[in-house]
């Protein structure tokens, strides 16, 4: 037999054939072709292979988009342990104002941080922490103490580690603004903070609230269903009466999940009030993180069990980094209120936050390393429902649709995720504060949650909203969490 006419079946031949096959797979091309094609062709072929194809809006298999926004945690602080992600936890050290170095440390057993001040996460404090891009000012801003450079390991948190490992986690997800809660939540809703850099209430002579330029207004104008779900304090009240009109209590979210009647777009918020007592359910210090995690578990489980999960996506995000340490320098991006001076720049994004995507189209156990912000989620919503840009910010954002894998078969299998019980957390101030770096007593200055101001200032009342505190019965879905037998 001529050696040219057939496959040579000698052992040598077999080995080489197998090898060529494998090399072809490695290069994404035929080994024989690799030498023949031009580099341009090879490049094009390779990039086609590694890039995600996102279907056109009308073919995008996402009908339900849910955004759950928790409070105040940075990526390194919360998920720095995650394999394949760019996280750093132990072994880092930060200098305080006096120049003393302090090492990062694990917050074992401390779920509230009662003994410590709430880390600084204001516009100015964030810039001190950024320190011109060196990311080393975490102990030099505000009253920050060692708490701000503490971290949680995988075993310390009851829920988010499991969901992060099961679905797609983002390790380049920056909060939209290097500032506090309000402006970031405003960016989540409207891709701008209306020039606000702090938690100022929108009190204008003409009336309460910002002009309603939110994604909700745009969706409503396009005839797309949308709803905002609160637990105790509705952030939507920042847009006045129209904001409240689209708001529902979180029990409605659970019901709609179960009956498959979730609107196309919904945002879900935890219980904010009770921070000074350490009983808030949003993971904001000094609220007990286990309480917030139990709430997150309910929201995620309700979504996973909903018939709408099959064509849906749920994003878990945190509104900002809460003053906790992180090593990745946030970028500057285009913004309507961009300024060359970083101290006045609304285009300066905030520090990384933990973010997870739950969807049958999410890559399982995957870490996405591309750059996203809250506006990336807005862009996905706009892309899906054909809406024009809200501001420059979301116009130039990277579409988070790119993190899905729409080419693979959707995976409807619901992974086993824990369902942590409700924790009856102790109010802060009950015990004596431990000594240590900055271990000041809190007694003198209790601090209410930023968002609680909406209630305490009478703002909600003026809008005609009747505030009701978040009881377990109004927070959780599952009877077992309320101490009842299912």
């Amino acid at each position, binding site marked *: 037999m001529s050696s040219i006419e057939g496959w040579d079946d000698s052992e040598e031949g077999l080995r080489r054939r197998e090898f060529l096959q494998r090399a072809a797979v490695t290069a994404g091309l035929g080994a024989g072709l690799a030498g023949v094609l*031009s580099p341009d062709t090879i490049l094009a072929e390779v990039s086609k292979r590694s890039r995600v194809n996102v279907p056109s809006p009308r073919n995008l298999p996402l009908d339900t988009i849910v955004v759950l926004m928790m409070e105040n945690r940075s990526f390194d602080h919360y998920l720095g342990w995650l394999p394949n992600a760019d996280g750093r936890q132990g072994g880092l050290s930060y200098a305080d104002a006096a120049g003393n170095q302090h090492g990062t440390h694990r917050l074992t057993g401390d779920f509230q941080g009662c003994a410590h001040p709430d880390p600084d996460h204001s516009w100015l404090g964030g810039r001190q922490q950024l320190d011109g891009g060196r990311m080393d000012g975490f102990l030099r801003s505000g009253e920050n103490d060692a708490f701000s450079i503490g971290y949680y390991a995988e075993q310390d948190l009851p829920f988010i580690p499991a969901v992060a490992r099961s679905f797609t986690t983002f390790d380049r997800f920056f909060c939209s603004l290097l500032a506090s809660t309000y402006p970031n939540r405003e960016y989540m809703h409207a891709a701008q903070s209306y020039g606000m850099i702090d938690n100022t209430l929108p009190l204008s002579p003409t009336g309460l609230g910002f002009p309603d330029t939110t994604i909700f207004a745009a969706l409503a104008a396009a005839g797309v269903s949308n709803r905002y779900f609160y637990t105790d304090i509705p952030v939507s009240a920042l847009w006045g009466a129209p904001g409240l009109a689209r708001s529902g209590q979180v029990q409605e979210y659970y019901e709609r999940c179960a009956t498959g009647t979730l609107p196309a777009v919904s945002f879900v918020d935890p219980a904010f009030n009770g921070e000074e007592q350490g009983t808030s359910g949003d993971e904001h210090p000094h609220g007990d993180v286990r309480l917030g995690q139990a709430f997150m578990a309910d929201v995620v489980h309700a979504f996973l069990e909903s018939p709408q999960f099959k064509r849906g996506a749920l994003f878990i995000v945190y509104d900002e980094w809460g003053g906790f340490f992180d090593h990745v320098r946030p970028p500057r991006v285009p913004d309507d209120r961009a300024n060359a001076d970083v101290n006045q720049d609304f285009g300066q994004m905030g520090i990384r936050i933990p973010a997870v995507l739950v969807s049958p189209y999410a890559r399982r156990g995957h870490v996405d390393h591309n750059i996203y912000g809250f506006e990336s989620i807005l862009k996905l919503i706009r892309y899906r429902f054909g809406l024009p840009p809200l501001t420059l910010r979301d116009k130039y954002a990277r579409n988070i649709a790119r993190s899905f894998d729409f080419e693979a078969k959707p995976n409807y299998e619901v992974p086993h995720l824990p369902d942590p019980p409700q924790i009856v957390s102790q109010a802060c101030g009950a015990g004596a504060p431990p000594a240590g770096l900055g271990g000041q007593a809190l007694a003198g200055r209790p601090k209410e949650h930023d968002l609680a101001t909406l209630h305490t200032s009478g703002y909600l009342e003026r809008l005609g909203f009747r505030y009701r505190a978040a009881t377990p019965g109004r927070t959780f879905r599952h009877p077992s969490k309320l101490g009842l037998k299912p």
Partner: protein
Amino acid sequence: MAVLLATLGVALLAAQPAAAALDEPVSVTAQAPEAVAAGTAFPLRVDVAAEASALDVAAQPLRLRVRFAPECGGSFAGTEGPTAIDRVLPAPTPGAAYSQSVSVRAKLGAPGPETVCAFLEDAAERQFATDTEATLTVVPPCPAARRKIGKLKQRLARIDRRLRKLRRARHEADGARRRHLAKRIHKLRRQRHRVVKQLRRAFREAQIACGGGGGARASAAEANLPAGVPQIKHLFVIVLENENAETSFGPNSPAPYLGTTLREAGAFIPNYYGIGHESLDNYIAMVSGQPPNPQTQSDCQLYTEMLPGTLREDSVALGQGCVFPRGVRTVANQLEGAGLSWHGYMQDMANAVPEGEPASCRHPAIGAIDPTQKARAADQYAARHNPFVYFHSIIDFPTCQENDVDLSRLPGDLARARTTPSYSFITPDLCSDGHDETCANPALPGGFAGIEAFLREWVPRIEASAAYRDQGAIFVTFDESASGASSCCNEPAGPNTPNNGGPEYGSGGGRVGAVMLSPCIEPGTVTQTPYNHYAFLRWSEDDFGLPHLAYAGAAGLKPFGSDVFAKPGCDPEAAVAAQKAGAWTHLRVRPRKAVRGKAQHFRFLLRSNVAACRRGALVRLAGHRTRTNRRGRALIRIRPRHSGRLVATARAPSCKPAATSVRVRR
């Protein structure tokens, strides 16, 4: 850790609609090979595309910055790693769409995974678009990879020797001893398995590090030719000076070797036209498609910059002057980009080189008077007949010294097909190309006698080379006519000169005629179809699978076709095969089954009792096409969209077609 390297240039490309597809008005797309060898340069290309007025809010200038890092930071400044590109991009026109492409060759030092981190920033370091998706693996360099294979092979042999010994012993032993030996054998076999896995990996890395087939370099790009036109793998261009077609190829040609012998041995193209007067603009058009301007039309007495050199949408540079800016590309840049080789062979370039000037890529300093305008007895090189030195995209890079060389290098390069460039541009000296009627060196013949002497020496030499015999071609023509400024093929007028004919009023460079010689051409072929230098460039680009430059891309311009290459099938053996009784071809595909929606490779083997039918056959599967290699093998990767049967076919000119099928299940 890694270093940066040479740059190939910026080129304007057609706007890419991909940006708009995801509702992202600005997009950056980086392309790099998936695996590269450490220390070996590899192509890196970054495309920037923006919708109309999307970049108007950016603070100029825009910068494209690319770094390699295991993981990209949130910004260029926040990414730690070697910088591959840091370039200020031309300002976008307000209100217009924007598109730029930057190609460089990059090199990485340390083996391991790397990400291409590309950022489009404005002056305030504000990111308008990023691409952090392209990843690549750096494998150890070739010698290290080979050493690793050697070591692993030795280890494997050692294990095999011990295994043989143990097996023999087991065969003879019994009871507890036998069980003990069996255990040891089992352990050793597992060890062997691990080594085999490592060896496979090492082979894979060596394949990447050392190039396909262990040193053989890329041969040819996919040609972009119509059916029936064979691909020329080695092209030799010889350009002579200033004669009319009627004279050179007329009945009483003063050059009988060219006008009769060569004409009858190949394809004669009587209606081949120059594109302008005088010389230089014709040479420039042949390699770049750029039109004449008054400076090039007067042969660039002063070696000045071509300014402003702004690129029009069709990549025609606007301005006046001689040396085109970096953004203007030539067929040489294109060939390099495609991994193909090119050489300019300039007779007499290395002779009597003035002190301080290199013996290759020789050209005056910018702004200086060109001293080669008039031949000297010992140095009859003319820079104005060497088109490659009129482009910054060539002379700014060390590859110019390697590729634009003296003609004396040609015989050595012809020795083997492997060392012969894919594209050779041969310019005889002022005496041998017929430019000077009486030579500066009185011992040599000038005019037609010079042409005859040159062709009689060099054409047979090329024809005897392996490169020519394996689908090579020699193209002989003149730059411009001696008189008349006629044109053909709707040659565009301007935009840089009021009169293409320069000193002679007319729209072109006159009819000069041309001859193409090739084993792929039926001797005695004559075509009346008109062609010019732009058409020639277009054909040579098609032949090597390259996009068309400037006026070579003019709508409706016809490249050489089957009227020139009239011989059925280039390969003489294949021609015989058609008539041969009992000829058969058989196409085999593996695997035979596929799964719908799953991308996979299909390996083809084309078998035939006629060797010529096995190679170069066109294999088609589900709209994908490729050609078989020397051994009749081909590989196609597809993702079947529907279940059922997919038919694959293989066709070679004059050979029996063959077909087979793949079953696609759900």
